[in-house]
């Protein structure tokens, strides 16, 4: 991605020059300038710039690697801006976008839509790379986590596995494009093909998992964002809670997931969701209070423990899936091309039978052509058909169409279909090898028998493709021969010279009349429901080959190419479903922490309550570099009225560890009381243990129109431990120590912003910048770390 050299914020540029000349902004900017110059020494965050934007921004996310900010507007346009606010591209996917996130390498932006699609877009040009339907309802949250490179030890490096395909095969074929006029619906595929190529090769270097959570409580996991590896429904997950030696089972109902976060070692997943908590042992115990927002900890150690295996499998499987798409497109395109040509042919030649009946003759068109060929006589009907209704020009047109269709067919077979099928078979053979390694691959669900079955199927497909190309070549030659013979006849009938017509083989004309005038073997091969007849000799031959290790399914030649392909697809699906279900079944719920109750009336708005989850590496981790532990921080706003608290923000840490090790209850947190005249608009966890809060003045108070951005160092605040006693009281948050937040506090850095603010807040840990949006359609970018050197360190750490 050399297109975007990392743009560093210019050093110590004081915002002397107003960066915009917009009239509306002038007054505010002067004010801003005044305040920033007045507090040049005291004000913590430096304002980088303040730009008006003509949209209402709904979601915003910084690129983890480069200085790029992706934003989603209220009308679901996606904008990509550079750090200097230069716009790179705008796209409108035409769907309502409900969530956004970046791939860990910053090369792909993933969008979740209202109808359950995940769209992957290229950062360079905004082109859509993939669209995957993994959910049925709106995707609320996305999280794309990558395996930390630090966690690789030498031993795992030796387990690394090389994809040999590139060494033995030319680059994989892409979808065939439809030449000429009849493109249109595949126009998109045309543009995409190079991008897809680049995507598959670049994104598979490091193991990463995209988690998507939807409104109905389903979480999907997909490796590289494209290969689905697991799906769990929180509504069906049993939650076991150990309290005072007693084990109680709970279940959540009507779950809507609002936030997911996968730790960077892929070991644990924390999610926030709203729903009703039900005690499955004692159903009567549930009450109104049980509807609320809960925090769940899922054990995803299958991903971290088996990441090498999953990486290898998904690398092969995802490219197999790509190639299957190529094959599908090739087959559909061939059948389209061929049926176009055949339609023309039949349209022209169907005039003959009607002419024959018009002349009161009983014979079929085949007989007529036969008698013409053997020179017995030319019936008036045939004469009329050949000379007037078909004509020389019409005949030439048919010949040309069929010839060009044949050429297309040949190209598609040789450049797309055949190489694709070959690479599929190679990759499947590799996968089968992996499947044989039972001790490592059986527990991620790679099944040897299923893989064997798929390998057989693909072998039959290879044979089918070969047969298809042979049949196609024969048929085309027969057509050519027949048409030039008819042309010759026409010329003779018109008593024109025939020396320009290529000579024809009358024997082949007979074969054509016998076998091809009414039948169409190419079409038969391209349609799924056709049974292809094959002579007894070959059937015997195939049975004979079984002894030599041929395919045990001797009936495979009866199937058409398309049928064989759909069978391959089916068995592939079955084979890849095994890892999917196996992995899904190994994701368990480890712990539950009810956060706060919501009354059913505001249950809907609860999903939009600001919250943030992040994992930070333990600094005092005693472990070696290979298995560091990480601490999770959950930060969220408690909606007014819930728990009898008003204007509170809660920060909780160490939830995961408290779930896994019950003997050391380390779960702790604190509450933060925000001054009454302000309300918390959005919040975010930032870098190591810091919280960034956006506070906006309430419209009723005199502070309306003024806002504050606050960064708190959580280490300076006192975390108090709190217990998780079930089931006496679901919600224990009140136990936490409440701190008053003063805006001139020593806890952290505070800066006033002369705008009323709205969501979202986008902070970038790698760059140390924050972008906030005012409700008057302004975007403000602040530098959070004045210390550039610290920023530098952070940046290099990220790399």
């Amino acid at each position, binding site marked *: 991605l050399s297109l975007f050299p990392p743009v560093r914020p210019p050093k110590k540029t004081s915002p002397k020059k107003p960066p915009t000349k917009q009239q509306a902004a002038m007054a505010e900017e002067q004010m801003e300038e005044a305040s920033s110059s007045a507090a040049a020494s005291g004000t913590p965050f430096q304002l980088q710039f303040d730009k008006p934007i003509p949209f209402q921004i709904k979601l915003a996310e910084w690129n983890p690697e480069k200085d790029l900010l992706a934003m989603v507007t209220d009308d679901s346009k996606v904008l990509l801006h550079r750090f200097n606010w230069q716009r790179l591209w705008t796209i409108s996917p035409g769907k309502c976008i409900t969530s956004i996130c970046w791939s860990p390498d910053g090369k792909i932006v993933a969008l979740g839509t209202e109808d359950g699609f995940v769209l992957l877009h290229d950062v360079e040009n905004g082109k859509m790379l993939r669209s995957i339907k993994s959910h049925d309802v709106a995707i609320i949250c996305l999280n794309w986590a990558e395996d930390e490179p630090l966690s690789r030890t030498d031993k795992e490096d030796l387990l690394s596995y090389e994809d040999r395909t590139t060494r033995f095969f030319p680059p994989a074929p892409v979808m065939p494009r439809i030449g000429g006029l009849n493109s249109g619906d595949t126009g998109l595929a045309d543009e995409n093909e190079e991008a897809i190529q680049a995507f598959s090769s670049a994104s598979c270097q490091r193991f990463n998992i995209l988690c998507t959570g939807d409104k109905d409580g389903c979480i999907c996991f997909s490796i590289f964002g494209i290969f689905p590896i697991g799906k769990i429904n929180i509504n069906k997950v049993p939650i076991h809670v150990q309290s005072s030696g007693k084990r109680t089972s709970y279940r959540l109902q009507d779950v809507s997931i609002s936030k997911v976060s996968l730790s960077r070692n892929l070991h644990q997943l924390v999610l926030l969701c709203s729903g009703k908590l039900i005690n499955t042992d004692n159903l009567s115990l549930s009450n109104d209070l049980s509807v609320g927002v809960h925090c769940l900890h899922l054990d995803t150690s299958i991903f971290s423990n088996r990441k090498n295996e999953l990486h290898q499998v998904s690398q092969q499987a995802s490219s197999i899936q790509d190639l299957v798409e190529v094959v599908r497109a090739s087959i559909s395109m061939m059948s389209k091309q061929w049926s176009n040509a055949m339609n023309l042919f039949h349209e022209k030649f169907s005039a003959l039978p009607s002419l024959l009946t018009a002349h009161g003759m009983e014979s079929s068109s085949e007989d007529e052509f036969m008698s013409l060929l053997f020179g017995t006589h030319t019936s008036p009907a045939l004469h009329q058909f050949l000379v007037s209704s078909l004509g020389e020009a019409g005949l030439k047109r048919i010949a040309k169409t069929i010839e060009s269709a044949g050429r297309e067919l040949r190209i598609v077979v040789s450049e797309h279909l055949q190489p694709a099928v070959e690479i599929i078979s*190679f990759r499947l053979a590799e996968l089968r090898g992996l499947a044989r390694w039972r001790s490592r691959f059986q527990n991620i669900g790679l099944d040897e028998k299923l893989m064997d079955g798929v390998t057989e199927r693909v072998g039959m497909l290879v044979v089918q493709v070969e047969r298809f190309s042979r049949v196609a070549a024969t048929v085309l030659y027969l057509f050519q021969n027949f048409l030039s013979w008819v042309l010759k006849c026409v010329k003779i009938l018109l008593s024109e010279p025939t020396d320009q017509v290529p000579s024809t083989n009358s024997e082949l004309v007979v074969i054509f009349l016998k076998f091809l005038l009414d039948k169409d073997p190419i079409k038969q091969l391209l349609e799924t429901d056709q049974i292809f007849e094959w002579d007894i000799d070959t059937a015997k031959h195939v049975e004979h080959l079984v002894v030599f290790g041929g395919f045990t399914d001797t009936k495979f030649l009866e199937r058409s190419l398309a049928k064989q392909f759909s069978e391959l697809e089916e068995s592939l699906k079955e084979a890849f479903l095994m890892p999917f279900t196996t992995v899904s079944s190994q994701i368990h719920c480890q712990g539950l922490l009810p956060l706060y109750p919501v009354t059913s009336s505001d249950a809907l708005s609860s999903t939009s309550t600001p919250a943030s989850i992040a994992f930070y590496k333990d600094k005092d981790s005693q472990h070696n570099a290979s298995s560091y532990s990480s601490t999770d921080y959950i930060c969220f706003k408690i909606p007014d009225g819930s728990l009898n608290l008003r204007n509170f923000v809660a920060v909780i840490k160490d939830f995961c560890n408290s779930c896994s090790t019950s003997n050391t209850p380390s779960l702790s947190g604190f509450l933060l009381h925000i001054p009454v005249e302000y309300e918390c608009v959005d919040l975010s966890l930032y870098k190591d243990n810091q919280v960034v809060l956006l506070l906006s003045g309430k419209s009723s108070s005199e502070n309306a129109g003024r806002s504050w951005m606050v960064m708190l160092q959580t280490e300076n605040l006192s975390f108090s431990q709190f217990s998780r006693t079930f089931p006496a009281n679901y919600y224990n948050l009140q136990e936490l120590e409440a701190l008053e937040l003063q805006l001139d506090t020593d806890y952290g850095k505070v800066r006033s912003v002369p705008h009323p603010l709205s969501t979202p807040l986008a902070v970038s840990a790698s760059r140390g910048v924050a972008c906030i949006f005012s409700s008057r359609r302004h975007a403000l970018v602040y530098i959070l770390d004045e210390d550039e050197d610290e920023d530098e360190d952070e940046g290099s750490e990220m790399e």
Partner: protein
Amino acid sequence: SAPMVRMNTLVYATCFADAASSSELSLAYVKLIEQLAVFKGYSAAFCALKLAEEKFPSSTNSQIHLLKMQLLHERALHRGHLRIAQQICDEFGVLSSSVSGVDIELKTEASLRRARTLLAAKQFSQAAAVANSLFTTCYKYNMQVENASVLLLLAEIHRKSDNAVLGLPYALASQSFCKSFNLDLLEASATLTLAELWLALGSNHAKRALSLVYQSLPMILGHGGLELRARSQIVLAKCHLTDPEFSVSEDPCAVLDPLNQAAEDLQVLEYHEMAAEVYYLKAMTYNHLGKEYEREEAAARFKEHVTALENPRDEEDSLVY
């Protein structure tokens, strides 16, 4: 890629059966039978060979005749019928230097087989001498694949003669040779031999050997034949057993699974020597675990294979199929 070899041959045999010349078609059949022998064992291969012989009378077809001899030789070696193996080797020698001229490929194959027969007969120095002279020939005629496999054979000879240190350079040379010529399967087996050599050097090298086995396993399991697969499983189990940090009682599956798989494969292959090894290891493991019934069973099977190896009873049987 072995499955692709099979697939493409099948394509040829199915689609072009009517158009191909008989020599080409017989080549396709030969390839298929070779695959069968490697992946499905000898009985299946000989069954197919009979059919092929009916189709192409062997008197006119040298390819099928050669194949027959190769298969017989392999089987004789595996069964421990050394006299038969020697006899077939001599036949090979005669074939390779016929009156009509010297077929260099056939000649190298003949001496390769001779070296392997000598190795099986535990005449290490003679085997090494044959292999060395073979290496010089191959080197002279730039036969890279043969070069690599001869190097591997030399490593094997040194390993079997308990000279692991001497074998190491040969295995390494073979490995790097394979790497530069993209001979992945041969490279994997070279890596496996390397692991065996390290293992032979003592238990403190078990970790290194294990990682080498891990490296080669995907390749071997995917494309290797029964023999190679079984060998890799045995080495895997041995790595675990020799590793001082590994305890059988904690994770018996890590040892028993590969051993069971190897036993299955070797049963098909009728390879007595390695099967005996497998059962020996199995009996030892069960002994550690305290499962006496299983131990006795494995020990009985071990004895069976050893006696079969030591007293080759039905030697004449080896020539019929």
